[in-house]
């Protein structure tokens, strides 16, 4: 009889524990990407090893399926970035994303014909627009709805290369160039786009990304306030021809959950918002709408410490003890009744 009691107790505890271990209870909608809450600083620099820094190991990557953008011209007819692995952490004030995707070649653009690899993450400015809010793609309204403002962080390999290796000027691109004299090289008037205030034309790039806003296709605008960081690293392919591990990009983006800028997204702990991804393969001359994109995805910003999740310990133990007590009580009652019958 003691053995039966013990067995029932173990089964009951196991069942309760299994049902409770996992994600924190949220709304009814399942999240595609879960931002795990951690305490302390978030990693903002890509670690140089093959594995991301330890903090990221608490997360499970969400492998996001990408597809060719075929809604507006110019289109990409066949995707060249199949999946992007996304991990996310937050510390209650900041949120960080680690994004990895395979790319056989590192492209930093340059010259008249070169294009660069890049990746963008996009959020609705109005929080809580998930699932499937009233807009698609880059804030294009559907079925007569108004367009919606979206907030975009676009990391670019060419901008990062400029920060790491210096501004790429004409003599870097064409070392054999022979020009006797240029007038007034320092004047922005003669660097026409820079003189006009185009941020992309600046020879003093400070960050390897842009923060942008859009309200539909073709409306992208750079924002002055960045309030974010982004940094990427390319990992060359490894192995032999028989067994090759393809090269890949790893990019980390960090940003505050809340912002005073009304054109920035606002995220709240414990709530769901939307996120969408876009990736460009420079080797395939991808730029603008010629890109691989994800659907709008659910992003859950967890507010519980999941490294040692309290609920996953207390709740199962309490439940198990209760179950054990109830079962024990029943067994005991049955035993007493049987003994009396004898």
């Amino acid at each position, binding site marked *: 009889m003691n053995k039966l009691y013990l067995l029932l107790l173990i089964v009951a505890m196991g069942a309760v524990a299994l049902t409770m271990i996992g994600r924190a209870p949220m709304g009814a909608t399942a999240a595609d990407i879960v931002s795990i809450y951690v305490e302390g600083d978030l990693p903002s620099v890509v670690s140089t090893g093959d594995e991301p820094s330890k903090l990221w190991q608490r997360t499970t990557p969400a492998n996001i399926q990408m597809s060719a953008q075929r809604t507006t011209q110019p289109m990409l007819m066949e995707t060249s970035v199949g999946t992007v692995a996304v991990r996310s952490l937050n510390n209650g004030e900041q949120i960080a994303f680690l994004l990895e995707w395979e790319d056989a070649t590192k492209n930093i653009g340059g010259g008249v014909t070169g294009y660069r690899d890049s990746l963008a993450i996009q959020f609705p400015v109005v929080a809580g627009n998930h699932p499937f809010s009233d807009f698609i793609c880059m804030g294009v309204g559907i079925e007569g709805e108004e367009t919606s403002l979206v907030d975009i962080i676009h990391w670019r390999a060419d901008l990062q290369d400029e920060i790491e290796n210096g501004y790429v000027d004409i003599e870097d691109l064409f070392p054999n160039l022979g020009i006797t004299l240029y007038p007034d090289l320092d004047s922005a008037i003669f660097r*026409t786009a820079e003189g006009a205030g185009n941020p*992309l034309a600046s020879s003093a790039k400070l960050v390897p990304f842009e923060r942008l806003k859009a309200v539909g296709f073709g409306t992208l605008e750079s924002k002055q306030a960045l309030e974010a960081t982004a940094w990427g690293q390319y990992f060359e392919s490894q192995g032999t021809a028989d067994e090759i591990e393809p090269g890949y990009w790893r990019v980390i983006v960090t940003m505050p959950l809340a912002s005073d800028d009304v054109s920035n997204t606002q995220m709240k702990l414990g709530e769901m918002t939307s996120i969408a991804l876009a990736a460009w393969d420079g080797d395939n001359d991808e730029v603008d709408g010629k890109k691989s994109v994800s659907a709008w995805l659910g992003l859950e910003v967890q507010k519980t410490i999941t490294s040692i999740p309290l609920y996953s310990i207390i709740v199962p133990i309490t439940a198990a003890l209760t179950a054990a007590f109830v079962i024990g009580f029943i067994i005991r009652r049955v035993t007493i009744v049987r003994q009396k019958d004898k």
Partner: protein
Amino acid sequence: MPKVSNWQLNRKMEFPYEEARPDKQFAVIMNINRCIGCQTCSMADKNTWTFSKGQEFMWWNNVESRPYGGYPQHWDVKLLKMLGSGKWQSDVFDGKTIFEAAVPDVEEDQQAERVVGYIPTDEEWRFPNIYEDTPAGDWVGTTELPEHQMWMFYLQRICNHCTYPGCLAACPRQAIYKRKEDGIVLVDQKRCRGYRKCNKACPYKKTMFRANTNVTEKCIACYPRTENGTAPRCVVACVGKIRLHGWLHSPAKSEADNPVDYLVHEAKVALPLYPQFGTEPNVYYIPPRWAPRPFLRQLFGPGVDAAIGKYTDPDDTLFGLLKLFGTTEKIIRRFSVGNQIASAFDENDRLILRSPFKEPSFVRPAYDATYDVDRFNET
């Protein structure tokens, strides 16, 4: 896709935007017959607009030797191959324009891009004047009109400020615009994000990417000058006096006393370059009368024979107007010809100049008896 009317093709054609013609259209007439290939126009343009770092390869104005030259190299041959065959049925083009030839994806019936084109390589931008003066054909001991056996000619090229610009059609963020007041096509230097869709789409390859600012630049039609009644630098600097700038109207609104309207719509002596591309370009050429007609018809369309005929045997009006080429920096809004004198008038109908068909000449004896000296030739 909207259907717009293209008078150069004599038919409707597809274009991403509705037809919206400007109040007046920037236009330049190039008389190929007079060009000596001195490149003064190219230098005038470069010294004015493209002398800075990053603009080295930018020859907004270039003069290339035909049939072999081209800047960027092979620009027209490459595009003609992409567009496939097409014929002129009388004066109607039955082939596909750069907008119509955008090949749909077979499965989805979608076009990846709005315009057919390609981005020239660095190598193709290397030689602004490749095959300079190189003739085609064989020397047969004589050179006679109507077609020389051994031939070449200079082709003067600037942005065509097209009525239906390929660059504008291809730009996904409307960073390129065509001004309503004068039809000049410009790249918004602040809005451009360097996608280079315009580089790919412009059939004449006259939008150019500046690698050290990551933005595309192009010929601006010297708008600071034209807004003030002065012709563009390349027009004014022309040593051979082959160019005339003016404001063109559509055929239905043609004004016979407007010099460019007269040359294009009335006398039909000036023809667009590659009208079959479908952009309705607004630089017009008086074809070289010595070059083989099939070659010229490919470049300038079915009006070549009539244009050369008219140019070879001009009436007084045409002869007088040709005399006004290169005579003034001012934009000629109206002209008149009478008593073998051509007159030019500005925007306010003020007389700019009069030019007689034949300049008065004086013959002075070699010996000057007054001073008892011999005269020396001063020229």
